[in-house]
């Protein structure tokens, strides 16, 4: 069976928002378009891109041998406190819409959680919210 390895799956999930047509509506609402899409490791940077921004963190891969594998990804959405969360709330359906069920090859992807609005003190009090995606494929 043809498969993608975890790294390729992560790249496909990320590219969907960073550069593909399917993520264009998301990019249009970000502070600096594609430049406001980054891997979560980039949140350590001293110069974050314009807000709102979205950052992808790959999570665990669940599932035992011979079972469906679940690859968990979390998009973190950040915005300035002055925006009161309105812009990132508006981004949530766009982000969800960027991932039709079969948009990532060889598996299925769906939204499996949306976190409550919170404040990230480590990032200067930016408003944060998370959207969890689960990509499922046969092991």
């Amino acid at each position: 069976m043809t498969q993608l390895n975890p790294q390729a799956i992560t790249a496909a999930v990320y590219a969907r928002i960073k550069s593909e047509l399917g993520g264009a509506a998301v990019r249009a609402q970000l502070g600096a378009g594609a430049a406001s899409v980054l891997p979560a490791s980039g949140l350590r940077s001293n110069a974050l891109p314009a807000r709102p921004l979205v950052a992808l963190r790959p999570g665990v891969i669940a599932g035992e041998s011979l079972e469906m594998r679940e690859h968990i990804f979390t998009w973190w959405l950040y915005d300035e406190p002055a925006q009161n969360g309105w812009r990132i709330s508006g981004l949530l359906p766009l982000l969800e819409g960027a991932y039709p069920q079969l948009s990532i090859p060889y598996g299925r992807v769906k939204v499996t959680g949306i976190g409550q609005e919170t404040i990230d003190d480590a990032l200067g009090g930016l408003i944060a919210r998370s959207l969890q995606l689960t990509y499922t494929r046969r092991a």
Partner: protein
Amino acid sequence: MIDDFAQLERELDELTRRITAAARRGLEAEAQAMERDAKNTSAYLGMSGATRASTIAFVVDEGDDGSARLAAAYATAAEHLAGFVGHAGNAHLEPSGAVGPGEIAVVLTVPTDYIDNLEIEHGGEKAFIGPTMDKFRSRLARRAARSIREELS
């Protein structure tokens, strides 16, 4: 033909009790594995040792809200943080929440007032509660199902 409905009702109640008890046994076993996994995380380094030492997973149902185990974990966190000056965090006790009749839940938590920060900061860079739950969600369901099967076989 059923002609003793009272007897039938008693037997159904007993069956429900056995199923619920079996599910709880299975969940308790898997919760222990989940707690060990969460304690062994490398997502954060830790400063006082309070988070790792007080990470706890337990099962709650209508008759047991887990408050005794939570209180013990709180005491562990408080002990590690007593006199610690590396950060301003404290032990923090928050009830795990009630579940209704016939419901069983598994809680994975840390009784400190800074665990939320670990889960959130820098896009969940040091998060381990959420990821551990992601990892164990289906394992918990499978373990409960297996325990029920064994009880009824």
